[in-house]
């Protein structure tokens, strides 16, 4: 197995402190970037690395940065998305708790590359430890001259702050996050204008996931090509964190090449299914990703392979359900989650998720009717592709995939009453 990149310090004593981070080569990449590289070169290197966003949409990071106008009437911002709310996902927390400086260093390099002088890390409110570790790390970085004025005597300056959320999954959506950062309720903005042009406080803004940014120091230190080659042969795109949960023997975050087959992750790394039961269903990319049947788990865990079978990589969070799992209850939990987290701004998601939640709850209570499954699909179709932000799709996809792929089980449940 190749050497770990993002999680090599996990579990080490005091791994979150500046001292330990520097001992392991921390902030070398920052020095390289600021002292030896032009901002454009940093972007080029990241472009070469094949790094795609780890927050869900998988947008190529280097390309995203290149959309930011060089000159703008308002200041530019970096916002790191540490809202990590997608059910099944717990990888960003592992980075922030164990290696906060990796994120800080990545954020400084990213800001330098784009000509940004203020960065915010938006951390979900529940992550108290991540928040304090990041705050400590930022303070240490200021003290050591990695943040603030005249960083490493280059004249470049950057301020960084942690912004705590307060309980709203939708704030992980990038424009809702910006609203929340501006001190408003977290409701997505319409696009255009895109955040790259008009974002935080009206300025051009880059929004990236924690894991995405955490890859940056390594890419700068070892080169884009090196990172790209860490991906599975023929796939590339580096390594990725796969949080595995559910009915597996060894749940946890696994750092593996992009393109590792799902089956391998479940059986070789997560130890297989508890009680050696059979797999019934697997969600491959966080709760929003369409569920897979056991026949589909040979898929490679990369953006294109998952899309090809109608699912998605999302956050890479793998949720394994064994043969005894009650899928009616599981779908009820998911739908209720989306209904609870719908921001309420646009009609189909606001009304549709609540309606679906009522139907599935009724089914679970044994009061389902045969027409209910078509009603669920009809509502999901009514939401899909018609909402203001991608949350509508996120809510519709589990319903469509569960009900279509496991229709027999749902019908039997309704018949049993």
């Amino acid at each position, binding site marked *: 197995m190749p050497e770990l990149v993002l999680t090599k310090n996990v579990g080490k004593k005091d791994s979150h402190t500046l001292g330990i981070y520097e001992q392991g080569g921390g902030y070398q990449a920052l020095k390289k970037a600021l002292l030896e590289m032009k901002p454009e070169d940093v972007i080029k290197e990241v472009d070469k690395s094949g790094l795609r966003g780890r927050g869900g949409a998988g947008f190529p990071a280097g390309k995203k940065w290149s959309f930011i106008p060089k000159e703008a009437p308002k200041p530019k911002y970096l916002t790191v998305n540490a809202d990590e709310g997608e059910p099944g996902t717990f990888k960003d927390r592992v980075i922030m708790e164990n290696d906060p400086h990796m994120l800080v260093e990545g954020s400084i390099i990213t800001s330098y590359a784009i000509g940004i002088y203020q960065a915010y890390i938006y951390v979900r409110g529940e992550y108290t430890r991540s928040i304090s570790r990041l705050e400590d790390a930022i303070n240490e970085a200021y003290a050591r001259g990695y943040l603030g004025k005249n960083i490493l005597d280059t004249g470049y300056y950057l301020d960084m702050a942690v912004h705590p959320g307060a309980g709203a999954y939708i704030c992980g959506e990038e424009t809702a996050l910006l609203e929340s950062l501006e001190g408003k309720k977290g409701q997505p903005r*319409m696009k255009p204008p895109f955040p790259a042009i008009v974002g935080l406080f009206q300025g051009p803004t880059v929004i990236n996931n924690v894991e995405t940014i955490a890859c940056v120091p390594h890419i700068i230190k070892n080169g884009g090509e090196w990172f790209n080659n860490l991906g599975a042969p023929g796939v590339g795109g580096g390594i990725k964190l796969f949080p595995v949960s559910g009915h597996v023997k060894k749940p946890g975050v696994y750092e593996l090449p992009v393109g590792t087959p799902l089956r391998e992750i479940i059986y070789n790394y997560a130890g297989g299914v508890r009680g050696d039961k059979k797999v019934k269903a697997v969600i491959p990319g966080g709760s929003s990703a369409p569920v897979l049947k056991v026949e589909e788990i040979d898929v490679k865990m990369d953006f294109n392979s998952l899309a090809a079978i109608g699912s998605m990589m999302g956050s890479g969070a793998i949720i394994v359900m064994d043969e005894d799992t009650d899928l009616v209850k599981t779908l009820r939990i998911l739908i209720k989650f989306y209904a609870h987290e719908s*921001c309420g701004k646009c*009609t*189909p998601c606001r*009304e549709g998720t609540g309606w679906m939640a009522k139907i599935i709850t009724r089914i679970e209570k044994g009061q389902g009717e045969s027409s209910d499954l078509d009603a669920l699909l*009809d509502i999901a179709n009514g939401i899909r*592709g*018609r909402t203001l932000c991608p949350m509508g799709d996120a809510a519709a996809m589990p319903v469509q995939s569960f009900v279509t792929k496991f229709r027999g089980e749902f019908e039997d449940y309704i018949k049993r009453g």
Partner: protein
Amino acid sequence: MPTLVIDDQKVTVDPGTTIIQAAKKLDITIPHYCYHPRLKSVDMCRMCLVEVKDIPKLQTACSTQVRDNMVVFTNNQKVLDARRSVLEFLLINHPLDCPICDKAGECMLQDFYFQFSRHTSKFKEKKQKKHKVVNLGPKIVLDSERCILCARCVRFLKEVVGTEELGIFDRGDHSEIGIYPGRPLENNYQGNLADVCPVGALTAKDFRFACRSWFLCQENSICPGCSTGCNVLVHSSERSYDKTLRRVYRLTPRDNDEVNQSWLCDVGRYGYHFVDDPDRLTAPSLKRGEEYVKVDWDTAFREVAQRLRGIFERYSPSSLGIIPSPQLTNEDLYMVKKFFNETLCITNIDFKLPGWNQGQGDGFLLKADRNPNTMGAELLGLSGIGPQAGEIIEKTRLGEIKALYLVGSDPARYLGEEKIASALSRAQLVVFQGSNYNYACKFAHAILPGATFVEKEGTFTNAQARVQKINQALRPLGESLPDWKIILGLALTMGYYFPYKAAEDIFKDIAREVTGFSGLDYKKVGDKGIKLALSGG
């Protein structure tokens, strides 16, 4: 300039135009809720989704800007499906209130449902319970269950009025519109909330349960509440439907980019109640001893004419005083000037009672000058000929003026009752001509009932010197007559003939004789008015 095709029709529009605006140019209405032409687009309701060729997802017509060669479909199956589905979503939690809802008949939910959906609901669950009959302030009531959360109300207050008095609280399908608890609406533009609300969630207390909207006729007019002259629609009915015997049910704003955009202030909007107030003067009356007796117009004219002539003959024109009101139309005021000043040579004519233009403005629509036609009165020369109105009253008190003729004016409002009592009680003749009783009537020897702004035709000239037209929505109450007609009748009785049959005829003479108005054509004043080209501002 981009040219695009919408439903097989070509249209060329300015860059930056949205699909919904471009479609409007072709008379294609794209259904919408959250979109309002005077508010920023927010993409919330999703009702306006249309298909744009080569884009897989439907696009919001309210915010998507046109591009050259764009091809848009507003009515194909994909679009109709989406529209039907949005309507279904909006209706699942909507109560079956139409039979008792004030908005019925002009509700965008009702209308689009009948036009595009007519589905039988597959919704079998319990509807979301929300607050009903919530008092938002002195003017507006909210029914949250009817609300479709388009945020037009919130945005109107924020973007237009500049107050953040309404918000959407909670989230998901628990979201509810509201004020901050215990902080009722205080702004002067609340009435617009009932207009911008596309459904019956926000209703005006003034109109609640008063009348079904389809029983009402609508007529273009101008708000008489201040010198802004907001363009309005008068909603009225000759037959009254409620116990207050009102015939006017509401004023709503009429679009005019140059004047009031799409808004009205509450002072003006709710100021119409004088039209059907019990204090309306409805028959000519003459004082006989301590009593007033109703008489017909001929008798009234004869008596007033005779007494005026008597004073004229005994004294001189300077023993007569006329105080007209800037509430009168240009045509009314022209007749006042033409007859009293130019014909009878009276120079004690003036409309500027002390403080006449000193109300409270609000910096937006409402002006300190609460008269719709100050500019007209000024241009027609109803001030500056002789003494000011205050002096006319004073001269009456001193006995220099023996006969005082009030045309629509209410001097006690500005000078106080005591002053008016001491002045008017000394006059040998007081004629009051106007629509509603006021303190001066107590001293009148003759009362000549005038019609209100909804009962006559004519023009006002607002503070920006825009000539705007009022139209007759109702028959004059009782025997009241438009003021110009009263003066015409009096003049005729005194032997002076003016060949006017309609306000338009007078307007022609105004356009011929009065600088500033020259060359204007009554027809061309139209619905939006015409700005006078005045030299020196």
